[in-house]
């Protein structure tokens, strides 16, 4: 449905006449999300997940690379004319409160995009009302009680559902959920995840899930792909369960080992990798970007940059010269 190759994004921070600063947010990222498929981007803070998500949703421009939606390459289309293509890709924001206009009722919020579509397709007002109720039901809300309300009158989970419902008004082919559950109460989180999964299954909407919580990534669908991003580069990419069970890149391993083990429910794996001590604050762009923090760093790592590739015996793509399985995973108590 959407593929991207070699996406590069560099933020130039102005604001000072004399010294500009560059942030290399993405350094040549490839991705491909099939129709009805799922993908998850994980990585620590600031690695570029949101930037990539926003580029995919057409909310941000990119400096280099090519994005193809359906089979239309965006490079052939003027910046201002891309909107209809990107409209098929809707973003679900992290903070459901700021994603809804506090001065507008849910009805008004849904009405605007629906009436736009009604105008384009020549449909009636009744259709708008029906459809508004329909999308709300789709996300598990009772239209009767929700339509007339303001966002602040709803709980976080309900708000996030409204946000999803609003995205559904334009019949999207893909949803980009950026940390869509991190601000929602623990007991309700799973509900949203299940909803996204359900939408995937029922409507064939692809879902791109952005998070730094690996565990939640699984819940969108086990047929999805996991992209592990580090400093603007995809360092590992493969089916969710494969990557979780057998991470090969030391960064993925560290990430996974940082997830708390639910003692009592599960037992830690046998060979836990020590979690990374701290952030890499150097701005060095030499060699492997992860080299300075890597506990398994080898000679090659400082000299050249590993590219995302498939190597023998490893089912997933990775960007490491010394891929090695290290058991970091926790096991359910039941299996122990």
């Amino acid at each position, binding site marked *: 449905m959407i593929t991207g190759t070699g996406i590069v994004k560099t933020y130039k921070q102005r604001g000072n006449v004399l010294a500009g600063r560059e942030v290399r947010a993405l350094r040549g990222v490839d991705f491909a999300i099939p129709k009805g498929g799922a993908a998850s981007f994980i990585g620590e803070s600031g690695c570029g997940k949101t930037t990539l998500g926003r580029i995919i949703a057409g909310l941000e421009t990119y400096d280099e690379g090519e994005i193809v939606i359906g089979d239309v390459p965006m490079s052939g289309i003027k910046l201002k004319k891309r909107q209809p293509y990107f409209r098929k890709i809707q973003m679900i924001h992290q903070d459901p409160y700021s994603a809804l206009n506090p001065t507008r009722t849910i009805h008004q919020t849904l009405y605007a995009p629906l009436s736009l579509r009604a105008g384009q397709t020549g449909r009636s007002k009744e259709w708008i009302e029906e459809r508004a109720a329909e999308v709300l039901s789709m996300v598990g809300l009772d239209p009767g009680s929700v339509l007339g309300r303001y966002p602040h009158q709803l709980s976080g989970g309900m708000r996030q559902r409204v946000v999803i419902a609003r995205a559904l008004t334009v019949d999207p082919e893909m949803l980009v959920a950026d940390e869509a559950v991190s601000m929602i109460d623990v007991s309700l989180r799973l509900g949203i995840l299940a909803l996204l999964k359900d939408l995937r299954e029922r409507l064939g909407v692809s879902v791109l899930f952005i998070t730094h919580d690996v565990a939640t990534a699984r819940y969108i669908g086990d047929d999805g792909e996991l992209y592990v991003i580090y400093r603007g580069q995809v360092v590992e990419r493969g089916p969710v369960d494969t990557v979780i069970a057998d991470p090969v890149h030391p960064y993925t391993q560290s*990430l996974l080992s940082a997830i708390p083990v639910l003692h009592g429910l599960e037992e830690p794996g046998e060979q836990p990798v020590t979690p990374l001590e701290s952030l890499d604050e150097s701005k060095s762009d030499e060699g492997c970007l992860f080299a300075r923090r890597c506990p398994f760093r080898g000679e090659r790592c400082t000299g050249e940059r590993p590219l995302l590739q498939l190597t023998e015996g490893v089912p997933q793509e990775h960007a490491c010269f010394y891929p090695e399985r290290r058991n970091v995973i926790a096991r359910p108590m039941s299996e122990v």
Partner: protein
Amino acid sequence: MAEQAPGVRIDGLTVVYKTPAGELPAVRDVTLTLEPGTITGIVGESGSGKSTLALSLLNAVQPPGRIAAGSVEIDGLGDVTGFAGEELRKARGRHIGYVFQAAQNSLNPLKTVGKQLLDLGRSHGVEDLRGLVREAKELLGRMGLDGARVLDSHQHELSGGMRQRVGIMLALVLNAHLVVLDEPTTALDMITQANILKIVREVHAERGLTTLVITHDIGVVAEVADRLVVMYGGRLVEQGPTREVLGSPTHPYTKGLIRAIPRLVGDIAEAQALPGRPPTLATVPKEGCVFRERCALRMDVCDTVDPQAVAHGSRVVACHAVTVKEHA
């Protein structure tokens, strides 16, 4: 002067907030004991009263809130709910270290960490300020930071994880043996979170502390706590040794909560969301069980009678259904 880890006994604590709808309890009739030298973890969703409970330990509930009933007995100090003025101030910091929720913002943005450390020392009449700085550097070094550099930095020059460590340092530097950590890892990255939790565990052991960790993330508790306390709607619904509670939860809320945790392994279909939504101060039922609206085991008695916390072995549970089952 408690040089050893103190025990804490909270008894029948009720804290109310004044709202347009009258005084509403954010913490209701909580009885809890922190054994000396243990790490206790309190979990609960947003608004369940965790922070309010933690603040009560320092008698620091902010207006319009107030402690309406109950006591907080701390070894070597006494009942802090009766403290006021200088006495209370001296207890804070010296005896009880508090690591603030969102500790990232718990530092004065205009002053370097070092200056704030000195302010702290002066506030508590520390004579040997050099010694204090040395101690601080040591603690920071212990947590993997360059002490000298950190003391010379302003808040904005430190990353979230570093600030959190500074927060822990400030809680411990006066040699407090009771430490309260309110959401020490919220808004932190996975990797940083893992680091902080490791530090909490290690420092706890090294310095012989009594620690209370508050979080809404069961994973965090599972990682560090010896005992797990679950709060819901201002009530303490279940408590017991962490592994036991996680492994075999008894209260329907605890069960639901654990089932709703996204997990790295296992069958995803097993996981289920809790229906309904967590209550707010205004929507907490005035009488009867606070959880009954979302409860699958709801009985008639739940509507009218607030279930008492009942000890079942090492576990304390407040649920009519569980009590009935136990006695059946």
